[in-house]
Protein backbone atom coordinates (compact mmCIF):
# COMPACT_ATOMS: atom_id res chain seq x y z
CA UNK A 1 0.00 0.00 0.00
CA UNK A 2 2.93 2.28 0.38
CA UNK A 3 4.15 1.69 -3.10
CA UNK A 4 3.97 4.20 -5.86
CA UNK A 5 1.33 4.19 -8.56
CA UNK A 6 2.26 3.86 -12.22
CA UNK A 7 2.26 7.63 -12.51
CA UNK A 8 4.87 8.19 -9.90
CA UNK A 9 7.93 10.06 -11.15
CA UNK A 10 11.29 8.59 -10.51
CA UNK A 11 11.99 10.31 -7.22
CA UNK A 12 13.77 7.89 -4.95
CA UNK A 13 14.18 7.99 -1.17
CA UNK A 14 17.57 9.30 -0.03
CA UNK A 15 18.80 7.99 3.29
CA UNK A 16 21.44 9.26 5.68
CA UNK A 17 23.36 12.48 5.92
CA UNK A 18 23.12 14.83 2.99
CA UNK A 19 26.38 16.00 1.49
CA UNK A 20 26.66 19.70 1.03
CA UNK A 21 28.69 21.09 -1.82
CA UNK A 22 31.10 22.46 0.79
CA UNK A 23 31.91 18.90 1.82
CA UNK A 24 32.97 17.83 -1.68
CA UNK A 25 36.25 18.27 -3.50
CA UNK A 26 39.62 19.24 -2.10
CA UNK A 27 41.38 22.57 -1.48
CA UNK A 28 43.17 22.30 -4.83
CA UNK A 29 40.07 21.22 -6.80
CA UNK A 30 39.00 23.60 -9.55
CA UNK A 31 36.20 23.81 -12.06
CA UNK A 32 36.99 27.00 -13.98
CA UNK A 33 40.19 28.99 -13.61
CA UNK A 34 40.36 32.70 -13.18
CA UNK A 35 42.05 34.50 -16.10
CA UNK A 36 45.77 34.99 -15.78
CA UNK A 37 46.68 38.64 -15.17
CA UNK A 38 47.67 40.38 -18.41
CA UNK A 39 48.21 43.93 -17.18
CA UNK A 40 50.85 45.44 -14.93
CA UNK A 41 49.48 45.93 -11.46
CA UNK A 42 50.26 47.09 -7.96
CA UNK A 43 49.61 45.30 -4.68
CA UNK A 44 45.93 44.97 -3.89
CA UNK A 45 46.43 46.70 -0.56
CA UNK A 46 47.57 49.77 -2.44
CA UNK A 47 44.81 49.66 -5.06
CA UNK A 48 41.99 49.24 -2.57
CA UNK A 49 43.51 51.51 0.07
CA UNK A 50 43.44 48.77 2.72
CA UNK A 51 40.17 46.93 3.22
CA UNK A 52 41.74 43.74 1.85
CA UNK A 53 40.24 40.47 2.94
CA UNK A 54 42.30 38.65 5.56
CA UNK A 55 40.88 35.19 5.01
CA UNK A 56 39.31 33.82 1.84
CA UNK A 57 35.54 33.28 1.91
CA UNK A 58 34.56 29.70 2.74
CA UNK A 59 33.41 28.76 -0.75
CA UNK A 60 33.51 25.23 -2.17
CA UNK A 61 36.51 23.97 -4.12
CA UNK A 62 35.22 21.36 -6.52
CA UNK A 63 35.79 19.98 -10.00
CA UNK A 64 33.37 20.33 -12.88
CA UNK A 65 32.14 16.75 -12.64
CA UNK A 66 31.58 17.10 -8.90
CA UNK A 67 29.44 20.18 -9.54
CA UNK A 68 27.44 18.47 -12.26
CA UNK A 69 26.84 15.35 -10.15
CA UNK A 70 25.96 17.37 -7.09
CA UNK A 71 23.35 19.43 -8.87
CA UNK A 72 22.12 16.46 -10.88
CA UNK A 73 21.49 14.75 -7.58
CA UNK A 74 19.68 17.81 -6.27
CA UNK A 75 17.58 17.97 -9.42
CA UNK A 76 16.70 14.32 -8.99
CA UNK A 77 15.14 15.18 -5.64
CA UNK A 78 12.94 17.89 -7.15
CA UNK A 79 9.47 17.66 -8.66
CA UNK A 80 8.67 20.08 -11.48
CA UNK A 81 5.93 20.45 -14.07
CA UNK A 82 8.00 18.21 -16.32
CA UNK A 83 7.98 15.51 -13.60
CA UNK A 84 4.23 15.23 -13.38
CA UNK A 85 0.93 17.00 -12.92
CA UNK A 86 1.19 19.99 -10.58
CA UNK A 87 -2.42 21.06 -9.83
CA UNK A 88 -1.39 23.79 -7.41
CA UNK A 89 -4.35 26.14 -7.12
CA UNK A 90 -3.72 29.82 -7.76
CA UNK A 91 -0.26 29.11 -9.18
CA UNK A 92 -1.15 28.08 -12.75
CA UNK A 93 1.52 25.44 -13.13
CA UNK A 94 1.19 25.08 -16.88
CA UNK A 95 3.80 23.68 -19.19
CA UNK A 96 6.77 25.98 -19.79
CA UNK A 97 7.43 25.90 -23.53
CA UNK A 98 11.07 25.32 -24.39
CA UNK A 99 11.13 27.81 -27.23
CA UNK A 100 10.72 30.51 -24.55
CA UNK A 101 13.89 29.34 -22.88
CA UNK A 102 15.76 29.54 -26.15
CA UNK A 103 14.50 32.98 -27.16
CA UNK A 104 15.30 34.49 -23.78
CA UNK A 105 18.88 33.26 -24.16
CA UNK A 106 19.45 34.78 -27.60
CA UNK A 107 22.58 36.92 -27.30
CA UNK A 108 20.62 39.86 -28.70
CA UNK A 109 18.53 39.81 -25.52
CA UNK A 110 20.63 38.08 -22.84
CA UNK A 111 23.76 40.07 -23.73
CA UNK A 112 22.17 43.51 -23.44
CA UNK A 113 23.43 45.97 -20.88
CA UNK A 114 20.67 48.12 -19.36
CA UNK A 115 22.51 51.36 -20.02
CA UNK A 116 23.23 50.84 -23.69
CA UNK A 117 22.35 53.70 -26.05
CA UNK A 118 18.72 53.64 -27.16
CA UNK A 119 19.63 53.08 -30.80
CA UNK A 120 21.30 49.78 -29.91
CA UNK A 121 18.28 48.31 -28.12
CA UNK A 122 15.42 48.95 -30.54
CA UNK A 123 14.62 45.23 -30.79
CA UNK A 124 14.05 44.68 -27.10
CA UNK A 125 12.14 47.93 -26.85
CA UNK A 126 9.92 46.81 -29.74
CA UNK A 127 9.31 43.51 -27.97
CA UNK A 128 8.43 45.29 -24.73
CA UNK A 129 6.19 47.73 -26.56
CA UNK A 130 4.25 44.89 -28.19
CA UNK A 131 4.00 43.06 -24.88
CA UNK A 132 2.64 46.21 -23.22
CA UNK A 133 0.04 46.46 -25.96
CA UNK A 134 -0.93 42.80 -25.75
CA UNK A 135 -1.39 43.06 -21.97
CA UNK A 136 -3.43 46.24 -22.42
CA UNK A 137 -5.63 44.44 -24.94
CA UNK A 138 -6.08 41.39 -22.68
CA UNK A 139 -6.83 43.48 -19.59
CA UNK A 140 -8.86 46.26 -21.18
CA UNK A 141 -6.63 48.73 -19.34
CA UNK A 142 -4.48 50.88 -21.63
CA UNK A 143 -1.58 51.97 -19.43
CA UNK A 144 1.06 49.30 -18.82
CA UNK A 145 4.34 49.09 -16.95
CA UNK A 146 6.52 46.01 -17.23
CA UNK A 147 8.80 46.96 -14.33
CA UNK A 148 7.44 44.99 -11.36
CA UNK A 149 9.26 41.72 -10.73
CA UNK A 150 6.43 39.71 -9.22
CA UNK A 151 2.74 39.83 -8.43
CA UNK A 152 3.23 41.34 -4.98
CA UNK A 153 5.60 43.89 -6.49
CA UNK A 154 2.94 44.80 -9.05
CA UNK A 155 0.27 45.16 -6.37
CA UNK A 156 2.55 47.48 -4.49
CA UNK A 157 3.32 49.57 -7.57
CA UNK A 158 -0.39 49.88 -8.38
CA UNK A 159 -1.39 50.80 -4.86
CA UNK A 160 1.32 53.45 -4.80
CA UNK A 161 -0.20 54.86 -8.01
CA UNK A 162 -3.59 54.94 -6.27
CA UNK A 163 -2.04 56.77 -3.35
CA UNK A 164 -0.45 59.36 -5.62
CA UNK A 165 -3.72 59.80 -7.51
CA UNK A 166 -5.69 60.44 -4.32
CA UNK A 167 -2.98 62.79 -3.06
CA UNK A 168 -3.14 64.75 -6.31
CA UNK A 169 -6.86 65.14 -5.77
CA UNK A 170 -6.19 66.53 -2.31
CA UNK A 171 -8.02 63.54 -0.91
CA UNK A 172 -5.63 61.26 0.95
CA UNK A 173 -7.49 58.22 2.16
CA UNK A 174 -6.68 55.72 4.87
CA UNK A 175 -8.21 52.33 4.24
CA UNK A 176 -8.24 49.55 1.68
CA UNK A 177 -11.05 47.01 1.59
CA UNK A 178 -10.12 43.38 0.96
CA UNK A 179 -12.31 40.27 0.97
CA UNK A 180 -11.52 37.42 3.36
CA UNK A 181 -10.55 35.19 0.44
CA UNK A 182 -7.59 37.41 -0.57
CA UNK A 183 -4.02 36.26 -1.06
CA UNK A 184 -1.76 37.25 1.86
CA UNK A 185 0.20 39.58 -0.38
CA UNK A 186 -2.84 41.90 -0.63
CA UNK A 187 -3.04 42.90 3.06
CA UNK A 188 0.77 42.92 3.34
CA UNK A 189 0.97 45.31 0.38
CA UNK A 190 -1.70 47.54 1.87
CA UNK A 191 0.37 47.90 5.04
CA UNK A 192 3.51 48.73 3.08
CA UNK A 193 1.57 51.56 1.44
CA UNK A 194 0.68 53.02 4.80
CA UNK A 195 -2.98 52.06 4.55
CA UNK A 196 -5.12 50.07 6.95
CA UNK A 197 -6.90 46.88 5.96
CA UNK A 198 -10.63 46.44 6.26
CA UNK A 199 -11.67 42.85 5.63
CA UNK A 200 -15.10 42.03 4.24
CA UNK A 201 -16.61 38.54 4.37
CA UNK A 202 -17.80 36.43 1.49
CA UNK A 203 -21.42 35.56 0.93
CA UNK A 204 -22.95 32.10 0.75
CA UNK A 205 -22.30 31.89 -2.97
CA UNK A 206 -18.59 32.58 -2.48
CA UNK A 207 -18.63 36.15 -3.79
CA UNK A 208 -18.03 39.34 -1.87
CA UNK A 209 -20.88 40.05 0.55
CA UNK A 210 -22.45 43.15 -1.00
CA UNK A 211 -24.06 44.36 2.21
CA UNK A 212 -20.81 44.06 4.10
CA UNK A 213 -19.00 45.88 1.30
CA UNK A 214 -21.49 48.75 1.40
CA UNK A 215 -21.01 48.99 5.16
CA UNK A 216 -17.24 49.04 4.78
CA UNK A 217 -17.22 51.67 2.05
CA UNK A 218 -17.01 55.34 2.82
CA UNK A 219 -14.99 58.29 1.63
CA UNK A 220 -12.02 57.14 3.73
CA UNK A 221 -11.54 54.13 1.49
CA UNK A 222 -8.74 54.46 -1.04
CA UNK A 223 -9.29 51.20 -2.84
CA UNK A 224 -11.07 47.90 -3.01
CA UNK A 225 -8.73 45.02 -3.85
CA UNK A 226 -10.43 42.03 -5.40
CA UNK A 227 -9.36 38.87 -7.13
CA UNK A 228 -11.72 37.93 -9.92
CA UNK A 229 -12.15 35.08 -10.58
CA UNK A 230 -11.59 34.85 -6.85
CA UNK A 231 -9.48 32.40 -4.89
CA UNK A 232 -12.43 30.03 -4.59
CA UNK A 233 -12.22 29.76 -8.37
CA UNK A 234 -15.51 31.60 -8.79
CA UNK A 235 -16.37 34.51 -11.03
CA UNK A 236 -18.09 37.09 -8.86
CA UNK A 237 -21.48 37.63 -10.54
CA UNK A 238 -21.77 41.01 -8.80
CA UNK A 239 -18.51 42.25 -10.20
CA UNK A 240 -19.99 45.29 -11.96
CA UNK A 241 -21.87 46.34 -8.82
CA UNK A 242 -18.75 45.83 -6.73
CA UNK A 243 -16.55 48.11 -8.78
CA UNK A 244 -19.39 50.60 -9.11
CA UNK A 245 -19.84 50.67 -5.34
CA UNK A 246 -16.15 51.41 -4.93
CA UNK A 247 -16.28 54.23 -7.46
CA UNK A 248 -19.42 55.66 -5.83
CA UNK A 249 -17.40 56.61 -2.75
CA UNK A 250 -14.44 57.81 -4.78
CA UNK A 251 -12.38 54.66 -4.19
CA UNK A 252 -10.46 52.87 -6.91
CA UNK A 253 -10.91 49.21 -7.79
CA UNK A 254 -7.88 46.94 -7.96
CA UNK A 255 -7.85 43.49 -9.49
CA UNK A 256 -5.33 40.87 -8.38
CA UNK A 257 -4.71 39.21 -11.72
CA UNK A 258 -3.48 35.90 -10.34
CA UNK A 259 -6.39 34.18 -12.02
CA UNK A 260 -6.23 35.68 -15.51
CA UNK A 261 -5.79 32.20 -16.95
CA UNK A 262 -9.56 31.75 -16.68
CA UNK A 263 -10.72 34.76 -18.63
CA UNK A 264 -8.37 35.71 -21.46
CA UNK A 265 -10.40 36.82 -24.43
CA UNK A 266 -13.60 36.22 -22.47
CA UNK A 267 -13.79 39.03 -19.96
CA UNK A 268 -11.48 41.95 -19.31
CA UNK A 269 -10.87 43.50 -15.88
CA UNK A 270 -11.12 46.93 -17.48
CA UNK A 271 -14.61 46.07 -18.69
CA UNK A 272 -15.50 44.82 -15.20
CA UNK A 273 -14.85 48.34 -13.93
CA UNK A 274 -11.39 47.82 -12.48
CA UNK A 275 -8.92 50.71 -12.54
CA UNK A 276 -5.80 48.59 -12.23
CA UNK A 277 -4.59 45.02 -12.43
CA UNK A 278 -1.36 43.12 -12.12
CA UNK A 279 -0.64 40.12 -14.26
CA UNK A 280 1.61 37.26 -13.16
CA UNK A 281 3.56 36.39 -16.29
CA UNK A 282 4.87 33.29 -14.48
CA UNK A 283 1.32 32.02 -14.12
CA UNK A 284 -0.82 32.95 -17.09
CA UNK A 285 1.95 33.53 -19.61
CA UNK A 286 3.88 30.30 -19.15
CA UNK A 287 7.16 31.65 -17.88
CA UNK A 288 8.75 29.15 -15.49
CA UNK A 289 8.31 29.50 -11.74
CA UNK A 290 11.97 28.66 -11.28
CA UNK A 291 11.54 27.10 -7.84
CA UNK A 292 10.19 30.39 -6.49
CA UNK A 293 11.11 32.99 -9.09
CA UNK A 294 12.03 35.08 -10.99
CA UNK A 295 8.63 36.02 -12.27
CA UNK A 296 7.24 39.30 -13.49
CA UNK A 297 4.18 41.27 -12.43
CA UNK A 298 3.34 43.93 -15.02
CA UNK A 299 0.64 46.42 -14.04
CA UNK A 300 -2.16 47.58 -16.33
CA UNK A 301 -4.11 50.73 -15.46
CA UNK A 302 -6.81 53.04 -16.80
CA UNK A 303 -5.99 56.19 -18.75
CA UNK A 304 -6.54 58.27 -15.62
CA UNK A 305 -3.88 56.36 -13.71
CA UNK A 306 -1.39 55.91 -16.54
CA UNK A 307 0.52 59.13 -15.70
CA UNK A 308 1.35 57.67 -12.26
CA UNK A 309 2.92 54.42 -13.44
CA UNK A 310 6.45 53.65 -12.33
CA UNK A 311 8.98 54.46 -15.01
CA UNK A 312 10.41 53.76 -17.36
CA UNK A 313 7.74 52.50 -19.73
CA UNK A 314 8.27 52.01 -23.45
CA UNK A 315 6.90 54.58 -25.86
CA UNK A 316 6.86 54.56 -29.65
CA UNK A 317 7.11 57.45 -32.07
CA UNK A 318 7.43 57.05 -35.83
CA UNK A 319 8.68 53.50 -35.47
CA UNK A 320 11.37 54.47 -32.94
CA UNK A 321 11.13 53.21 -29.38
CA UNK A 322 12.34 54.76 -26.16
CA UNK A 323 11.98 54.44 -22.42
CA UNK A 324 10.04 57.31 -20.89
CA UNK A 325 8.96 58.25 -17.40
CA UNK A 326 5.23 59.03 -17.13
CA UNK A 327 4.40 62.63 -16.24
CA UNK A 328 3.23 62.05 -12.65
CA UNK A 329 5.20 58.83 -12.09
CA UNK A 330 5.52 57.46 -8.57
CA UNK A 331 9.16 56.79 -9.54
CA UNK A 332 11.10 53.61 -9.82
CA UNK A 333 10.16 50.37 -8.09
CA UNK A 334 13.43 48.60 -8.94
CA UNK A 335 16.57 48.95 -11.03
CA UNK A 336 16.73 49.02 -14.82
CA UNK A 337 13.89 47.79 -17.07
CA UNK A 338 12.29 44.94 -15.15
CA UNK A 339 12.83 41.21 -15.47
CA UNK A 340 13.43 41.42 -19.19
CA UNK A 341 14.44 37.76 -19.51
CA UNK A 342 10.98 36.87 -18.23
CA UNK A 343 9.34 39.40 -20.55
CA UNK A 344 10.98 37.80 -23.58
CA UNK A 345 9.54 34.43 -22.60
CA UNK A 346 6.06 35.87 -22.07
CA UNK A 347 6.15 37.70 -25.37
CA UNK A 348 7.20 34.50 -27.12
CA UNK A 349 4.22 32.74 -25.56
CA UNK A 350 1.78 35.50 -26.55
CA UNK A 351 2.90 35.30 -30.17
CA UNK A 352 2.77 31.52 -30.14
CA UNK A 353 -0.90 31.63 -29.27
CA UNK A 354 -2.23 34.96 -30.51
CA UNK A 355 -5.60 36.32 -29.40
CA UNK A 356 -7.53 33.29 -30.51
CA UNK A 357 -5.15 30.85 -28.89
CA UNK A 358 -5.23 32.73 -25.60
CA UNK A 359 -9.01 32.43 -25.54
CA UNK A 360 -8.72 28.70 -26.18
CA UNK A 361 -6.28 28.46 -23.28
CA UNK A 362 -8.83 29.97 -20.91
CA UNK A 363 -11.68 27.90 -22.25
CA UNK A 364 -9.77 24.67 -21.82
CA UNK A 365 -8.43 25.65 -18.40
CA UNK A 366 -11.98 26.25 -17.22
CA UNK A 367 -13.34 23.10 -18.80
CA UNK A 368 -10.59 20.95 -17.30
CA UNK A 369 -11.22 22.40 -13.84
CA UNK A 370 -14.93 21.78 -14.08
CA UNK A 371 -14.28 18.25 -15.31
CA UNK A 372 -12.11 17.51 -12.26
CA UNK A 373 -14.65 19.11 -9.97
CA UNK A 374 -17.47 16.96 -11.29
CA UNK A 375 -15.44 13.81 -11.00
CA UNK A 376 -14.08 14.51 -7.51
CA UNK A 377 -17.22 15.78 -5.80
CA UNK A 378 -18.33 12.22 -5.13
CA UNK A 379 -15.52 11.68 -2.67
CA UNK A 380 -14.85 15.14 -1.18
CA UNK A 381 -17.00 18.00 0.05
CA UNK A 382 -17.59 20.80 -2.42
CA UNK A 383 -18.40 23.86 -0.32
CA UNK A 384 -19.34 26.06 -3.27
CA UNK A 385 -21.34 23.99 -5.69
CA UNK A 386 -21.25 26.20 -8.75
CA UNK A 387 -19.65 26.24 -12.14
CA UNK A 388 -16.04 27.11 -11.43
CA UNK A 389 -13.47 28.95 -13.45
CA UNK A 390 -9.93 27.60 -13.92
CA UNK A 391 -9.73 26.21 -10.38
CA UNK A 392 -12.01 25.02 -7.60
CA UNK A 393 -11.85 24.37 -3.88
CA UNK A 394 -12.74 21.06 -2.22
CA UNK A 395 -12.83 20.47 1.50
CA UNK A 396 -11.36 17.53 3.34
CA UNK A 397 -13.55 18.23 6.37
CA UNK A 398 -15.50 14.99 5.91
CA UNK A 399 -12.28 12.98 5.96
CA UNK A 400 -11.10 14.83 9.03
CA UNK A 401 -14.41 14.43 10.85
CA UNK A 402 -14.92 10.78 10.08
CA UNK A 403 -11.38 9.41 9.99
CA UNK A 404 -9.16 12.01 11.61
CA UNK A 405 -7.24 12.44 8.38
CA UNK A 406 -6.31 16.01 7.59
CA UNK A 407 -5.96 17.71 4.24
CA UNK A 408 -2.23 17.89 4.85
CA UNK A 409 -2.23 14.08 4.97
CA UNK A 410 -4.10 13.89 1.69
CA UNK A 411 -1.55 16.23 0.16
CA UNK A 412 1.34 14.12 1.39
CA UNK A 413 -0.28 10.90 0.21
CA UNK A 414 -0.67 12.39 -3.27
CA UNK A 415 3.10 12.56 -3.44
CA UNK A 416 3.23 8.76 -3.16
CA UNK A 417 0.76 8.58 -6.01
CA UNK A 418 3.08 10.65 -8.17
CA UNK A 419 1.30 13.99 -8.12
CA UNK A 420 2.22 17.33 -6.72
CA UNK A 421 -0.53 18.21 -4.25
CA UNK A 422 -3.00 21.03 -4.73
CA UNK A 423 -2.73 24.20 -2.66
CA UNK A 424 -3.92 23.35 0.84
CA UNK A 425 -5.46 25.41 3.66
CA UNK A 426 -6.17 28.28 1.31
CA UNK A 427 -8.42 30.19 0.96
CA UNK A 428 -8.67 30.59 4.70
CA UNK A 429 -12.47 30.58 4.77
CA UNK A 430 -12.72 26.95 3.65
CA UNK A 431 -12.11 24.31 6.30
CA UNK A 432 -9.43 21.81 5.27
CA UNK A 433 -9.24 23.43 1.84
CA UNK A 434 -7.82 21.74 -1.26
CA UNK A 435 -7.50 24.23 -4.09
CA UNK A 436 -7.12 22.47 -7.43
CA UNK A 437 -5.99 24.05 -10.70
CA UNK A 438 -5.23 21.60 -13.50
CA UNK A 439 -4.37 24.18 -16.23
CA UNK A 440 -5.08 23.67 -19.92
CA UNK A 441 -1.83 21.89 -20.66
CA UNK A 442 -2.71 18.62 -18.90
CA UNK A 443 -3.99 15.80 -21.06
CA UNK A 444 -7.24 13.98 -20.35
CA UNK A 445 -5.14 10.97 -19.36
CA UNK A 446 -3.31 13.00 -16.76
CA UNK A 447 -6.57 14.51 -15.44
CA UNK A 448 -8.12 11.05 -15.15
CA UNK A 449 -5.04 9.68 -13.45
CA UNK A 450 -5.23 12.50 -10.92
CA UNK A 451 -8.89 11.69 -10.28
CA UNK A 452 -8.01 8.03 -9.84
CA UNK A 453 -5.33 8.94 -7.32
CA UNK A 454 -7.65 11.21 -5.35
CA UNK A 455 -10.39 8.58 -5.30
CA UNK A 456 -7.89 5.91 -4.31
CA UNK A 457 -6.75 8.12 -1.42
CA UNK A 458 -10.35 8.67 -0.34
CA UNK A 459 -10.64 4.88 -0.21
CA UNK A 460 -7.33 4.51 1.65
CA UNK A 461 -8.61 7.01 4.22
CA UNK A 462 -11.61 4.74 4.82
CA UNK A 463 -9.62 1.52 5.03
CA UNK A 464 -6.33 2.60 6.54
CA UNK A 465 -6.33 6.16 7.82
CA UNK A 466 -3.17 5.67 9.86
CA UNK A 467 -1.22 4.76 6.75
CA UNK A 468 -2.38 7.96 5.05
CA UNK A 469 -1.41 10.00 8.10
CA UNK A 470 2.13 8.68 7.80
CA UNK A 471 2.55 9.57 4.13
CA UNK A 472 4.65 10.15 2.15
CA UNK A 473 6.73 7.00 2.02
CA UNK A 474 8.34 7.04 -1.40
CA UNK A 475 9.76 10.55 -1.65
CA UNK A 476 13.43 11.55 -1.27
CA UNK A 477 12.71 12.51 2.34
CA UNK A 478 9.62 11.96 4.42
CA UNK A 479 7.73 14.41 6.60
CA UNK A 480 10.03 16.98 8.08
CA UNK A 481 10.49 18.18 11.60
CA UNK A 482 9.47 21.74 10.87
CA UNK A 483 9.22 22.63 14.54
CA UNK A 484 12.88 21.76 15.01
CA UNK A 485 13.75 23.89 11.97
CA UNK A 486 12.00 26.88 13.53
CA UNK A 487 13.16 26.35 17.11
CA UNK A 488 16.80 25.75 16.30
CA UNK A 489 17.33 27.70 13.10
CA UNK A 490 20.19 26.20 11.06
CA UNK A 491 20.30 28.61 8.15
CA UNK A 492 23.78 28.10 6.75
CA UNK A 493 26.71 25.75 6.64
CA UNK A 494 29.30 26.84 9.18
CA UNK A 495 32.93 26.15 8.28
CA UNK A 496 34.85 24.12 10.83
CA UNK A 497 37.17 27.02 11.51
CA UNK A 498 34.25 29.13 12.63
CA UNK A 499 32.22 26.60 14.60
Amino acid at each position, binding site marked *: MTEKSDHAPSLAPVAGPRRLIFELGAPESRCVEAPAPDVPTAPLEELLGGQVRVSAPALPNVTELEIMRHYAHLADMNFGVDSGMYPLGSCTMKYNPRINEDTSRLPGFAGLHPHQPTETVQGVFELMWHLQNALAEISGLPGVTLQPSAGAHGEHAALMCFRAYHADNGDPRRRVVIPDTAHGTNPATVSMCGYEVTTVPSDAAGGVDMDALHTALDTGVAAVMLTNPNTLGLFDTNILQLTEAAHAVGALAYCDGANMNAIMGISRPGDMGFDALHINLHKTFSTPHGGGGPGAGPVCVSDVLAPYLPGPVIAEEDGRYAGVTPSRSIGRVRSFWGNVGVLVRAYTYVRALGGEGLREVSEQAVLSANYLKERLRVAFDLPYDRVCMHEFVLSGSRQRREFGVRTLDIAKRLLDHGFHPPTVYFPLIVDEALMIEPTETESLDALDAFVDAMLAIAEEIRTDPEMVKGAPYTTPVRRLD*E*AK*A*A*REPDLRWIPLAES
Partner: protein
Amino acid sequence: MYPNDLKYHEEHEWVRVEGDVAVVGISHFAQDQLGEVVYVDLPSVGDEVVADETFGEIESVKSVSELYSPVSGEVLEVNSVLADVPETVNGDPYGDGWMLRVAMSDVSELDGLMSAADYETFIAE
Protein backbone atom coordinates in the same frame (compact mmCIF):
# COMPACT_ATOMS: atom_id res chain seq x y z
CA MET B 1 -7.54 20.30 31.53
CA TYR B 2 -8.80 23.54 33.08
CA PRO B 3 -7.70 23.90 36.73
CA ASN B 4 -10.37 25.35 39.01
CA ASP B 5 -8.00 27.70 40.80
CA LEU B 6 -7.36 29.72 37.66
CA LYS B 7 -9.32 32.47 35.94
CA TYR B 8 -9.59 32.55 32.14
CA HIS B 9 -9.69 35.25 29.51
CA GLU B 10 -11.71 34.90 26.32
CA GLU B 11 -8.51 35.09 24.29
CA HIS B 12 -7.46 31.88 26.10
CA GLU B 13 -5.00 33.23 28.65
CA TRP B 14 -5.20 32.15 32.28
CA VAL B 15 -4.34 33.95 35.53
CA ARG B 16 -3.20 32.48 38.82
CA VAL B 17 -3.63 35.04 41.61
CA GLU B 18 -0.87 35.14 44.20
CA GLY B 19 -1.75 38.09 46.39
CA ASP B 20 -1.26 41.24 44.29
CA VAL B 21 0.60 39.32 41.69
CA ALA B 22 -0.95 37.61 38.68
CA VAL B 23 0.81 34.74 36.95
CA VAL B 24 -0.23 34.59 33.28
CA GLY B 25 -0.09 31.80 30.70
CA ILE B 26 -2.20 30.27 27.94
CA SER B 27 -4.76 27.50 28.31
CA HIS B 28 -4.53 23.89 27.28
CA PHE B 29 -7.11 24.62 24.58
CA ALA B 30 -4.94 27.42 23.16
CA GLN B 31 -1.74 25.36 23.06
CA ASP B 32 -3.63 22.47 21.46
CA GLN B 33 -5.07 24.74 18.77
CA LEU B 34 -1.66 26.23 18.05
CA GLY B 35 0.14 22.92 17.79
CA GLU B 36 3.88 22.77 18.30
CA VAL B 37 4.98 26.11 19.71
CA VAL B 38 8.25 27.29 18.19
CA TYR B 39 8.62 30.85 19.45
CA VAL B 40 7.22 33.06 22.19
CA ASP B 41 7.77 36.81 22.14
CA LEU B 42 7.28 38.31 25.61
CA PRO B 43 7.65 41.82 27.04
CA SER B 44 10.53 42.88 29.26
CA VAL B 45 10.56 43.18 33.01
CA GLY B 46 9.31 46.62 33.92
CA ASP B 47 6.99 46.97 30.92
CA GLU B 48 3.37 47.82 31.55
CA VAL B 49 0.67 45.48 30.30
CA VAL B 50 -2.96 46.47 29.91
CA ALA B 51 -6.00 44.22 30.33
CA ASP B 52 -7.44 43.04 27.01
CA GLU B 53 -4.48 44.39 25.07
CA THR B 54 -1.66 42.38 23.51
CA PHE B 55 1.51 41.73 25.46
CA GLY B 56 3.29 39.44 23.01
CA GLU B 57 3.05 36.84 20.31
CA ILE B 58 3.22 33.08 20.15
CA GLU B 59 4.15 31.17 17.03
CA SER B 60 3.71 27.65 15.79
CA VAL B 61 5.33 26.57 12.53
CA LYS B 62 2.58 28.06 10.38
CA SER B 63 0.65 30.42 12.58
CA VAL B 64 1.08 33.47 14.75
CA SER B 65 -1.26 34.42 17.57
CA GLU B 66 -1.27 37.50 19.71
CA LEU B 67 -1.20 37.13 23.45
CA TYR B 68 -3.71 39.24 25.38
CA SER B 69 -3.21 40.27 28.93
CA PRO B 70 -6.05 39.35 31.31
CA VAL B 71 -4.97 42.05 33.78
CA SER B 72 -3.19 45.42 33.90
CA GLY B 73 0.03 46.09 35.70
CA GLU B 74 3.78 46.04 35.65
CA VAL B 75 5.71 43.00 34.50
CA LEU B 76 7.75 41.64 37.41
CA GLU B 77 9.19 38.59 35.75
CA VAL B 78 9.05 36.77 32.41
CA ASN B 79 9.61 33.07 31.94
CA SER B 80 13.03 33.02 30.35
CA VAL B 81 12.83 29.26 29.77
CA LEU B 82 10.43 29.89 26.89
CA ALA B 83 13.10 31.66 24.87
CA ASP B 84 15.08 28.44 24.54
CA VAL B 85 12.42 25.78 25.08
CA PRO B 86 9.19 27.27 23.75
CA GLU B 87 7.56 23.85 23.56
CA THR B 88 7.27 23.96 27.35
CA VAL B 89 4.01 25.79 26.63
CA ASN B 90 2.71 22.62 24.96
CA GLY B 91 3.93 20.24 27.63
CA ASP B 92 2.96 22.12 30.75
CA PRO B 93 0.78 25.15 29.96
CA TYR B 94 -0.24 25.78 33.56
CA GLY B 95 3.08 25.01 35.22
CA ASP B 96 6.50 25.47 33.66
CA GLY B 97 4.87 27.06 30.60
CA TRP B 98 3.81 30.21 32.50
CA MET B 99 4.67 33.48 30.75
CA LEU B 100 4.49 36.55 33.00
CA ARG B 101 4.25 37.62 36.61
CA VAL B 102 2.40 40.92 36.76
CA ALA B 103 1.97 43.31 39.69
CA MET B 104 -1.72 43.99 39.26
CA SER B 105 -2.77 47.64 39.27
CA ASP B 106 -6.50 46.88 39.44
CA VAL B 107 -7.54 43.59 41.02
CA SER B 108 -11.18 44.26 40.13
CA GLU B 109 -10.27 43.33 36.55
CA LEU B 110 -10.24 39.73 37.79
CA ASP B 111 -14.01 39.92 38.15
CA GLY B 112 -14.40 40.13 34.41
CA LEU B 113 -12.61 36.80 33.83
CA MET B 114 -14.18 33.35 33.50
CA SER B 115 -14.16 30.46 35.94
CA ALA B 116 -12.89 27.10 34.73
CA ALA B 117 -16.47 25.87 34.26
CA ASP B 118 -17.51 28.97 32.33
CA TYR B 119 -14.38 28.73 30.18
CA GLU B 120 -15.07 25.10 29.32
CA THR B 121 -18.58 26.06 28.24
CA PHE B 122 -17.12 29.00 26.29
CA ILE B 123 -14.66 26.88 24.29
CA ALA B 124 -17.27 24.18 23.70
CA GLU B 125 -19.21 26.79 21.75
